[in-house]
């Protein structure tokens, strides 16, 4: 059952999710090349951070000459959703010991698919399905990152600029789709309203501080109401 479930997971990952996710990692690879950072940096970032929101923030702050600490805080804040995502999916991944295999792959695409599909599978098939899906997605992410990095210098400037727009657009659409979920709408609005604060403060600390202030105010607003 394990191998079959893993194959099923991989096959599902290589459909529409791979195309949408691959486009964003292609754009990320191009953005890393644009920032003058190496292919190795791009691949390690994709393979080991494996959370596009944090990757983009990290790239923006670090490549802009920012120090390591604010870049790390900003990227961690952008990827702070790893924590609630892992809490939510943990019970679906089986008993505590085996679920650690899934740890590096808890990212938005495998997580969203896992939350939808895992409850419909028998328990022994769940972790293999998730690992099959996650590994296939991860390979797609690495391949498209490399493709974006290698192709970027050969593309005309207009196309490279359009490619750089793909990621903000992708996250804008995802956030809009999530806005009706409990707690998301106020945090989304607070983040948009806090953007001028990030811009005004500037430098590497602007974005993490804006996210922290906006997110905390939205959280308090939700508790107070």
């Amino acid at each position, binding site marked *: 059952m394990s191998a079959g479930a893993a194959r099923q997971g991989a096959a599902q990952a290589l459909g529409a999710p791979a195309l949408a996710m691959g486009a964003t990692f292609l754009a990320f690879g191009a953005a890393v090349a644009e920032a003058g950072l190496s292919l190795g940096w791009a691949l390690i970032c994709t393979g080991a951070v494996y959370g596009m929101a944090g990757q983009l923030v990290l790239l923006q702050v670090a490549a802009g000459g920012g120090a390591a600490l604010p870049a790390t805080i900003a990227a961690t804040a952008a990827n702070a959703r*790893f924590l609630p995502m892992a809490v939510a999916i943990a019970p679906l991944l089986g008993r505590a010991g085996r679920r650690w295999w899934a740890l590096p792959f808890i990212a938005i695409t495998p997580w969203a698919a896992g939350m939808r599909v895992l409850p419909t599978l028998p328990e022994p098939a769940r972790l293999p399905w998730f690992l099959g899906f996650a590994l296939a997605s991860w390979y797609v992410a690495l391949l498209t990152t490399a493709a974006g990095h290698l192709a970027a210098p050969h593309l005309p400037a207009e196309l490279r600029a359009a490619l750089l727009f793909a990621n903000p657009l992708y996250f804008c659409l995802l956030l809009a789709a999530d806005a009706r979920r409990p707690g998301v709408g106020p945090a989304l609005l607070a983040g948009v309203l806090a953007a001028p604060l990030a811009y005004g403060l500037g430098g590497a600390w602007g974005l993490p501080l804006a996210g922290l202030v906006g997110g905390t105010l939205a959280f308090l607003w939700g508790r107070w109401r």
Partner: protein
Amino acid sequence: MSQADWALALTIGIGLALRGLGLLLGGALRPDHPAIAWASAVSVATLAAFVTLAIAVPSGLLATVPLPARLAGLAAGGLAFWLLRGRLLPAMAAGLAALLLVRLIAG
């Protein structure tokens, strides 16, 4: 190691720790626990601020794209996403096509 390398190494370590903590807490804490809700809110707000800045006042090569072209890309992507009931890939393609088209027209 450069600052960018240090930032990458630290972000990897903290990201793994956050996931690991989530797996440990899974089953012990409910997903709507206040600490989890606060982390989610900060995550969404940081991402929303980042996206707002990336569209309104981008840096680097994206800054060479005029604001009307960026807004057209956003509007076309959003409209396609809504009309196609949440299909990401065609919505992104529509957004990027609109951005390129307006940039071409605007010169």
